[in-house]
């Protein structure tokens, strides 16, 4: 494969992977949506598949093309409403998406894409051959799978204009003719600028006349009255504009641009199989006036402010937009304004952009809202960046933060020297500025690593759907807050745990429809996947309305496994008992259901979550359902921390887990069953002597401060000797087997170059004497 191919291939793979994911999500959504909404989804699915096929054919990937073609045909039957959405069809289509995904995977690992399984191909052929439910649908239409401009009766509402009526033999040419029309429109745009100059005006008129002539031939193909009418106007203008007076030329020019805009709109919609209708009476009248070289009424002249959309509105070609309040924005050029309304992306090809700016005045208003394609929602302007580059950027920022800390430390030292006040101040100011800028840089870089949880969440409807099909349950998966953003690492580590929990909820939580009915519940179970930010943490909750966890069964199982004793068990509260399901080898299958093999992996949940410094909390009511709540810090690379001294050493405690810091007075500390506790307002806080915990020696009385930490509802007071201060720390892994085992989540480098360890609050709380006592077998 040549280099040229390789880079194209990479683009193809990236794009197709995204398209397939979208396709998957859309297909699953299709099943649960009523018929009115299906049209748009079907179109989107079709486009995704079609794009993949197009790109694949460019690269000569025959196996992909052939299969995508068949799948596309099947999808097309659905799209045209010839068959209706049902589980069998959807199964086949979803499997098709899987096959294409597999082919893409094969290609990205450097293999050839395999042929699709014949069985599935046959199944798809069966769907294609299946006699149309709608008897009127012609066989000929069914075979024209690739033509994008077909009529879609299903989704007439919400789209502008009327379906394009074309005889079948013309269908094939549609795409070509639309491209042709766009070409001419673009040429018009070049020429129209020349009208501004008297010297070039005549010449421009001649070339425009040529273009208009060609256009009229193309337009005839579509058999559209509006389009033909508009082009007739154009011809009319070009025949007289050459020797028209200046004021008239200006009015004419803007109308030419208006017509050009109409052509653009029409071509976009023709590709979608829609023909737009315009009211041409007023504009015809005005053009006729202009052609007699007479000026228009004063209130019309110039009222368009050189905006072609505005002129079309004035001339009544299209109805006023929803928000008619024009807001003059002199600096913004038309390209930006109009592309906002039509293509939404400034980076879009110019052919789709109605006007290039000839002048800088324009109206900043969503004039084209009504006619602009609804589905072209604002696409973010993005560039792709290799992850490796982001990683190295983050590393650099990490180093910079350390250096900044050093500079700040030097600043403090300078203050102790007897320097001139002025010099000191200017140095301080510079250091302060550096601190502030570093903070901003850090936030910006961290943001580049943030990704919406939708990347994960959007995969799950498929998982749940398949599971529901397998088990014969009815499950409705609700996704809330999938736009919540988290760090890339967090996202990756959340993926497996969430699948495990969801599977568990669907499999063991939600009951069979009959059972649910008998219990007076809706036969359709609901699983809600909810995400939101809580301070510097992100909270992900999986809520089902199933049968809930059974304390007794889990407790007995835990005793059986030797994880606890009956006495101990009695003292544990519900959420502690439920936590046993995360123990390795604790088969939930045996506990709550007859289905086997599904309980595996809940310990993966716990491992992954604690790797992220997160916590899990389970709340469950028997018969009502279970809520599993995961709390994870937003980011994992740089964080603010409190530096504390224990004995001779300094340690860092992540600020995000610190609630407050108190100084326990003599009277407040007492001992309960050998455990030191302190009264903190109306609660009892277990205290951990950090000196003992970290094997520090020291003679003088220590542990003066209690750092109150809390993670996921559990709290503890860590008694430390000194408080040094708050600082941004860069987390370095402490992953060598020699240094694992202690209650540390990593290390950080201090401004003097020494290493200081980061305390793992989760582990400290879990292993706090109280918890250890609770857990002791």
């Amino acid at each position, binding site marked *: 494969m040549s280099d040229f191919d390789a880079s194209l291939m990479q683009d193809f793979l990236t794009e197709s992977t995204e398209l397939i994911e979208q396709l998957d999500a859309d297909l699953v959504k299709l099943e649960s949506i009523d018929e009115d909404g299906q049209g748009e989804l079907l179109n989107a699915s079709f486009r995704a598949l079609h794009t993949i096929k197009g790109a694949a054919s460019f690269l000569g990937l025959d196996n992909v093309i052939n299969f995508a073609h068949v799948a596309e045909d099947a999808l097309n039957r659905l799209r045209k409403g010839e068959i209706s959405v049902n589980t069998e069809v959807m199964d086949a289509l979803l499997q098709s998406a899987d096959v294409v995904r597999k082919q893409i995977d094969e290609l990205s690992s450097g293999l050839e894409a395999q042929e699709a399984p014949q069985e599935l191909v046959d199944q798809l052929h069966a769907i294609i051959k299946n006699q149309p439910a709608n008897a009127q649908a012609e066989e000929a239409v069914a075979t024209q799978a690739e033509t994008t401009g077909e009529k879609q009766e299903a989704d007439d509402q919400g789209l502008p204009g009327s379906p394009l009526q074309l005889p079948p033999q013309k269908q094939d040419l549609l795409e070509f003719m639309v491209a042709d029309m766009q070409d001419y429109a673009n040429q018009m745009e070049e020429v129209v600028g020349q009208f501004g100059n008297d010297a070039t005006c005549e010449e421009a008129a001649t070339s425009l006349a040529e273009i208009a002539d060609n256009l009229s031939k193309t337009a005839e193909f579509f058999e559209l009255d509006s389009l033909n009418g508009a082009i007739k106007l154009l011809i009319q203008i070009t025949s007289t504009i050459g020797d028209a007076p200046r004021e008239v030329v200006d009015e004419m020019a803007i109308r030419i641009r208006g017509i050009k805009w109409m052509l653009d709109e029409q071509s976009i919609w023709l590709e979608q199989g829609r023909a737009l209708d315009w009211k041409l009476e007023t504009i015809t009248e005005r053009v006729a006036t202009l052609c007699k070289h007479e000026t228009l009424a004063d209130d019309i002249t110039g009222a368009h402010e050189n905006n072609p959309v505005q002129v079309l509105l004035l001339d009544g070609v299209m109805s006023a937009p929803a928000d008619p309040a024009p807001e003059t924005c002199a600096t913004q050029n038309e390209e930006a304004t109009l592309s906002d309304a039509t293509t939404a992306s400034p980076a879009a090809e110019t052919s789709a952009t109605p006007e290039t700016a000839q002048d800088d005045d324009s109206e900043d208003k969503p004039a084209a809202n009504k006619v602009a394609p609804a589905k072209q929602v604002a696409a973010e302007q993005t560039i792709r960046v290799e992850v490796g580059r982001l990683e190295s950027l983050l590393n650099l920022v*990490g*180093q910079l933060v*350390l250096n900044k800390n050093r500079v700040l430390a030097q600043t403090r030292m300078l203050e102790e020297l007897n320097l001139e006040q002025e010099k000191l101040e200017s140095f301080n100011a510079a250091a302060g500025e550096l601190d502030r800028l570093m903070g901003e840089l850090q936030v910006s870089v961290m943001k580049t690593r943030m990704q919406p949880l939708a990347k994960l969440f959007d995969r799950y409807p498929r998982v749940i759907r398949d599971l529901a099909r397998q088990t014969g349950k009815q499950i409705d998966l609700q996704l809330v807050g999938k736009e919540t953003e988290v760090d890339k690492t967090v996202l990756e580590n959340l993926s497996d745990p969430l699948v495990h929990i969801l599977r568990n909820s669907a499999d063991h939580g939600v009951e069979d429809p009959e059972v649910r009915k008998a219990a007076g519940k809706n036969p359709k179970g609901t699983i809600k996947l909810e995400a939101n930010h809580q301070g510097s943490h992100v909270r992900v909750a999986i809520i089902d309305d199933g049968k809930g966890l059974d304390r007794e069964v889990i407790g007995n199982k835990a005793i059986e496994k030797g994880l606890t004793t009956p006495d101990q068990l009695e003292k544990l509260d519900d959420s502690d008992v439920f936590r046993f399901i995360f123990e390795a080898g604790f088969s939930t299958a045996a506990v709550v259901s007859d289905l086997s093999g599904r309980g595996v992996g809940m310990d993966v949940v716990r491992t992954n979550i604690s790797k992220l410094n997160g916590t899990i909390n389970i709340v469950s009511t028997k018969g009502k359902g279970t809520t599993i709540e995961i709390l994870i810090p937003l980011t994992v690379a740089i964080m603010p921390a409190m530096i504390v001294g224990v004995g001779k*050493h300094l340690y860092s405690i992540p600020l995000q887990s610190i609630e407050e810091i108190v100084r326990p007075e003599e009277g407040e500390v007492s001992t309960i069953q050998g455990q030191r506790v302190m009264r903190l307002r109306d609660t009892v806080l277990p205290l951990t002597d950090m000196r*003992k*915990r*970290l*094997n*520090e020696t020291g003679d003088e009385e220590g542990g003066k401060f209690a750092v109150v930490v809390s993670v996921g509802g559990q709290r503890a007071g860590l008694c430390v000797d000194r408080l040094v201060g708050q600082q941004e720390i860069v987390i*370095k*892994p*402490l992953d*060598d*087997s*020699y*240094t*694992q*085992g*202690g*209650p*540390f989540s990593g*290390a950080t*480098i201090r401004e003097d*170059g*020494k*290493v*200081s*360890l980061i305390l793992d609050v989760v582990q400290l709380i879990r*292993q706090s*004497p109280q918890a*250890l006592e609770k857990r002791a077998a």
Partner: protein
Amino acid sequence: MSDQLNEFTGESVNNQADKDLLQLVSFVVGAEEYAIPILAVQEINRMMDITRVPQSPAFVEGVINLRGKVIPVVDLRKRFGMAIHENTGDERIIVVEVQGESEARVIGFTVDKVNRVLRIGSDIVEPAPNMASGADSEYVLGVGKLDEGLLILLSLDKLFSQRELELAATAAGNDTTAQAA
């Protein structure tokens, strides 16, 4: 024997003449002179601040900041079960790369003194004597008979292997007592 010593010759063996030559760095721990292949050594540093890591194996002195990377440092005296001695100023931290179970690890270890870089013929190296049996002596690859005395050739992979860690933990008494507290 020669198989065993391949580790020592490493990539330096390019021509016939060099074939039997081992290029080593030698250092002193306690009374003995030890040697490791020069190619395994990343750098040799003066003593620096070592941050203690509570609840790690006893012979792990702590961690250091090696230009932004945090690496563990092993005290070879403790590793060999020798008495701790007063600082002399000659101590060095030798940073080496060893093959871990899944990936390469970078580890530092403290020695009393770094002696010299030397080349010796593999013919003067004898296999480790069996008398020093017991699992803990597995890391001795061989003994070089030099004119001025014996040189103990160490296998870094064995010295810092995971298995050794466990053995040493039981032998030296891991200070995990606090973990149970």
